C-alpha cells in the first residue's frame, strides 16, 4: 500500500507527529482487547487518536471483506486485537 510509510518510518512518534495523516482501525474482541481499551481509558492512559476502535462480539466475527472495506474507506492500517 503506497499510503503506508515504510517500516523504518513506522513508529509511535511518527504517528504522534502526524496524527491527522493516519487512520488505524482496530477491531477488538469485547471480552479481552476492548475491555483492555476500556480499562486504559479508565486509567487515563494516552494513545494516538489515529487509532479508531471497533468493538466486535468476537474477533472470529471479523471477515477479510471487513478488513478490505476498511482499507477501501481510507484506513492506513488495520489492527486485530483479540
Amino acid at each position, binding site marked *: 500500500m503506497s499510503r503506508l510509510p515504510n517500516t523504518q518510518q513506522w513508529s509511535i512518534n511518527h504517528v504522534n507527529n502526524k496524527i491527522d495523516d493516519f487512520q488505524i482501525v482496530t477491531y477488538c474482541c469485547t471480552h479481552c482487547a476492548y475491555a483492555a481499551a476500556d480499562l486504559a481509558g479508565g486509567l487515563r492512559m494516552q494513545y494516538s487518536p489515529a487509532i479508531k476502535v471497533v468493538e466486535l462480539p468476537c474477533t472470529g466475527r471479523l471477515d477479510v471483506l471487513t478488513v478490505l472495506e476498511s482499507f*477501501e474507506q481510507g484506513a492506513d492500517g488495520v489492527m486485530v486485537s483479540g
Partner: protein
Amino acid sequence: MITGEQKPLEEIQALLGDAEKVLVVGCGTCVTVCFAGGSREAQILSASLRMASKLNDHPQDVTDVTVQRQCEWEYLDEIEKEIAEADIVLSLGCGIGVQAIAEHFPDTWVVPGLNTTFMGIPQEQGVWEERCAACGDCILGLTGGICPIARCSKSLLNGPCGGSEDGHCEIDPEVPCAWQLIYDRLTSMGKEDTLLELQPPKNWQVSRDGGPRKIIREDLRLISDEA
C-alpha cells in the same frame, strides 16, 4: 464438482487492461463450494482490484454480481443489465461459465479469473483431489469404484505398472497408485478374480479423442428434429 483456482492478481489485471468499468461475475455452484469463484470470492477480488487499480493511478469501477449457475442461459438473463453496463466482464466461473457468458452476450468481452482444474472431491477441508476424467465410457464397475483413468498417472486399464512402489506412484511418493488401491479394494471385497480378466483397448472416441462431445436427448427436447 468442477474445481478451479483463482489466477494471480497480476494476470487478472493484465487481462482487464485499461477497462473503466469491470463486472466480476461469480458462480454459485461448483466454484463456490471449492472457494474459488463464489459470491465471497467475487467481493474480495472486486475490492482487491479496486484498491490495486487505485494504487496504479488508474482507478477502475469494479462491481460484482453472482448468479446461481453461469452455465445456464436462464441465470445469465438475470444479469443482462449489469453485463450491458460493463466494459469488460471477469468471470469467476469455470471455463464453461466464461464461454456461456461469451456466447450469451456476443457484444461483451469476457475474460477468465480462474484456471479450471479438474472434476474432483473435497478430500478434507482445503484439499481437493481429481476423481473423474469424463472419459465417456465408465469402467468403475470393473475397478471397485476407483477410476484408473483419472487416478492412474498413465490411465492404465491393466495396471499396475512397474512404477508402482509401496503402493505409491513413481511420479510422486505422495500420490497413491490407483491400481494398488483397486487391488486392495477388490481383495478386501473378495473380488480380486475380476483382475484376471484382461481389459481390451478402451473406446477413446467417446472421450476427447472423438472431438467436442454432445448429448442429445430427444425425450427431453421441446422441439424434436423429427417433428
